[in-house]
């Protein structure tokens, strides 16, 4: 089992869709929300994904294919 800490950033058209709920339903991944900020036209959710590495990867691929951007918690680590 693995845990991964990620940020989901949502585009406007997905704000009202239950993406995180569906992620938990369709993949063997437990989602654990820690913080979020969502407004009418944009939003982010910080959460922990708990499951097998492969399931987490598949789940993230699916979320990404929906149009959600997935980043490691803490933002970019490549610097100038």
């Amino acid at each position, binding site marked *: 089992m693995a845990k991964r800490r990620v940020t989901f950033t949502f585009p406007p058209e997905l704000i009202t869709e239950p993406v995180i709920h569906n992620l938990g339903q369709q993949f063997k991944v437990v989602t654990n929300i*820690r*913080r979020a900020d969502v407004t009418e036209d944009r939003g982010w959710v910080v959460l922990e994904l708990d499951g097998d590495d492969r399931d987490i990867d598949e789940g993230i691929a699916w979320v990404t294919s929906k149009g959600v951007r997935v*980043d490691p*918690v*803490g*933002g*970019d*680590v*490549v*610097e100038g």
Partner: protein
Amino acid sequence: MSYATALRCRECGREYPQEPINVCEVCFGPLEVAYDYESIARDLSRDKIAAAPASMWRYKELLPVSGEVIDIGTGFTPLTKADNLGRELGLRQLYLKNDCLNPTYSFKDRVVSVAATKAKEFGFSAIACTSTGNLAGSVAAHAARAGLKAYIFIPADLEQGKILGAAIYNPTLIAVNGNYDEVNRLCNELADKYPWGFVNINIRPYYAEGSKTLGYEVAEQLGWRAPDHAVVPVASGALLVKIWKGLNELSMLGLIGPVSTRMHATQAAGCAPVVEAFRAGTHIIRPVKPNTIAKSLAIGNPADGYYALKTIGESGGAASAATDAEIVAGIKLLAESEGIFAETAGGVVVSGLRHLVAEGAIKRDELVVAFITGCGLKTLEAVADSVVSPPIIQPTLASFEQMYGERAL
């Protein structure tokens, strides 16, 4: 001895012991160093600072280190009044904080000096980073000085000059063949797995504190006062947030009066997630894919973007972006008017400042400090095509005069 007391979560306020960690276990918010300001206020004075060496470490009481520091000669860089550039931009009191004049030619020496010191305190035998240039050189140099191993990850397509600027210190350099997101992902995995002091991951709370010294120095150099405006280049956003923190700490300690500095962010138009969010009137950043010649500012998903936006808002500042053409024009204007050759981030600041004046965010008589954070020799390719190459003459007076004639008299 250190006046730092704990790491504190910026979101939920939970405290943690000072260890190499950067994220709150509960809410995953970023951790920040907390200090015992009462003791600092008792022990620190203007006189004591003024008597200390001309280095960033003259403010050691306000940095989270206990023992001997890893110092390669960083800080207390010149603050120069820029009347020529000021005239050009319509400003009467413009100052440039020239951080090109650090040991590895950028402000990154400030953050890395703290990070290397801390890594050593924690007992790490290696420090690491992922960088497109400035950070790589600085980490490699500090590792050399500290006797630490350095693991430095760079994009496989990085320019030769930048590779050299790090390679000369003989770190372990690893070129990664992957896109930006893949490199980010790899480095997070590396940081989880290897026992390194990853300067901007597990050492980040300490690392970032180094930028406060820019705020301290500017206030001291202005005769113990904060400027009316600070114009700052933004990548992760940490620099802008920490300059603000530095100024406010001085005020809290009674070393300067109340701070009414407006903090302005400047970014390259090809990577402006903070400017875009500012304009949209939100604190929520939409990550972007960077596409700009200002590689040192090309962070698409800035770690401190949210806090930078909060700081801009709290301080009454603004934000502006410069196109690649404006960046080159800004570099040239700074060089031709003030004799300072900055890298692309400096071009962003100069052109961003021009926009801020034009928009009325900065008024003619106000005291402005523009932060020039890296040296132009690092990004020669950015301006190579836009400076004229010299005409060739014969080694005779006649040849010279044929070319220039009376004009030279």
